[in-house]
């Protein structure tokens, strides 16, 4: 998976998918796409690719522009994905009802496949997963988790976490003790706090208005969110 600020390219079982940030300007998207393809073109040549940009529709002209850029890199545009088809990353489309998939995507990644890591991730460890990741332990400095879905750490998160890695801005990162070296959600990156305050209790980080916001995730609000 590669990405720039507003464009993400991901390999799935059904081929390559290009994700465009629906909120971004077309010119910006094409610029970033060009850069992204330039860097990964060796791997991709001759592949077919499908695109996704949420509910946003491209004009005829924009569509043509996009195809030109893809052709230049010998990629073939074979179609567009609807929000229904994208669903939750990592979840196969075939069995779940389409309606439910849409709701999940819209409301922010509450379901989907999940990886349980039943130990502490020490320095040098990297976990990458197409879906959500739950760590039953700590994530130490020098360790990283990259997930297309949410990340939840039952202990201390002191390493690097990247949730919504394929561009899902509704993903969240939560931890009992949230003190990451660096936190990324979709395309938004922040550094951890310089001074590590103790005993704040569980916290959750999300994107709000293009910014990463950290809030207390007390028991009450967890319950409130669940239903």
């Amino acid at each position: 998976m590669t990405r720039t600020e507003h464009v993400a390219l991901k390999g799935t079982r059904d081929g390559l998918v290009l994700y465009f940030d629906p909120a971004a300007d077309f010119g910006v998207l094409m610029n970033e796409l060009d850069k992204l393809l330039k860097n990964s073109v060796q791997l991709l040549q001759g592949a077919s690719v499908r695109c996704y940009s949420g509910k946003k529709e491209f004009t005829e002209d924009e569509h043509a522009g996009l195809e030109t850029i893809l052709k230049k890199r010998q990629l073939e545009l074979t179609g567009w994905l609807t929000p229904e088809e994208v669903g939750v990353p990592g979840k196969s489309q075939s069995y779940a009802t389409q309606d439910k998939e849409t709701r999940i995507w819209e409301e922010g990644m509450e379901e989907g496949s999940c990886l349980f890591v039943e130990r502490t991730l020490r320095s040098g460890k990297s976990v990458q997963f197409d879906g959500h990741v739950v760590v039953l332990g700590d994530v130490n400095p020098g360790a990283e988790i990259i997930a297309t879905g949410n990340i939840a750490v039952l202990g201390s998160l002191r390493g690097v976490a990247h949730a919504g890695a394929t561009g899902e801005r509704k993903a969240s990162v939560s931890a009992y003790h949230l003190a990451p070296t660096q936190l990324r959600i979709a395309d938004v990156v922040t550094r951890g706090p310089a001074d590590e305050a103790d005993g704040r209790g569980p916290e959750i980080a999300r994107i709000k208005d293009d910014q990463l916001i950290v809030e207390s995730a007390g028991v009450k609000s967890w319950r409130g969110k669940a239903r």
Partner: protein
Amino acid sequence: MGEVIVVTSGKGGVGKTTTSANIGTGLAAAGHKVVLVDTDIGLRNLDVVMGLENRIVYDLVDVTSGNCRLKQALIKDKRFANLFLLPAAQTKDKTAVNPEQMKVLAAELKAEFDYAIIDCPAGIEQGFRNAIAGADRAIVVCTPEVSAVRDADRIIGLLEAAELRNPKLIINRIRPEMVKRGDMMDISDILDILAVELIGVVPEDESIVISTNRGEPAVMDKTSKAGEAYRRITKRITGEEVPLMNLDVPIGIMDRLKRLVGLR
């Protein structure tokens, strides 16, 4: 049947060789039959710290490659008849030995000695893999610095992956007055991250430098604070319960330590 204990750290210069020499000497002083093995091929030090440099004829590589028998390469210590050193080769490199050979050697040492202490080179490459190959237990040394703790964490992960679980931690070169001022990581900060059992805290101590240069481990020096720390560590290795020495670290931290140090 003896035990093979590897002393490792990841980061260089944190005190693996100092620790190996002191633990080995301490165990020998307590009457155990001990061999020290220097696996830092190409950068051997343990012979110097033990003051045995001028007695080396054969080395580790000679043994593993069959150039000589184990007995021929072992150097008897100056002070203790039950303490031996198997020196590293200085003119070869880490690839001159492989983990399989180290396992064979470890088995041979265990049959002969109560304790084999393996001094591991810095890093996570072949030298490290050689050093841990035949080990039953591991001691991880780190200093109160962020980088040393990070490397120790990495090493603990690699040890776990190699089925060397529950390594014990030594924090070396702690300076109580710096901790007090808040200028140095304190012990609980380190244990928070590493989450392993602490087996000792060794203060920064000039006597280490002096004894190292003299080739006489500080553990034999009754007036040395670091020596005292190593005497206690030695006892803990043999399963004795000993309290941590009073290093004048601020209260609170010491309280917490008592809970964290698993004394069995």
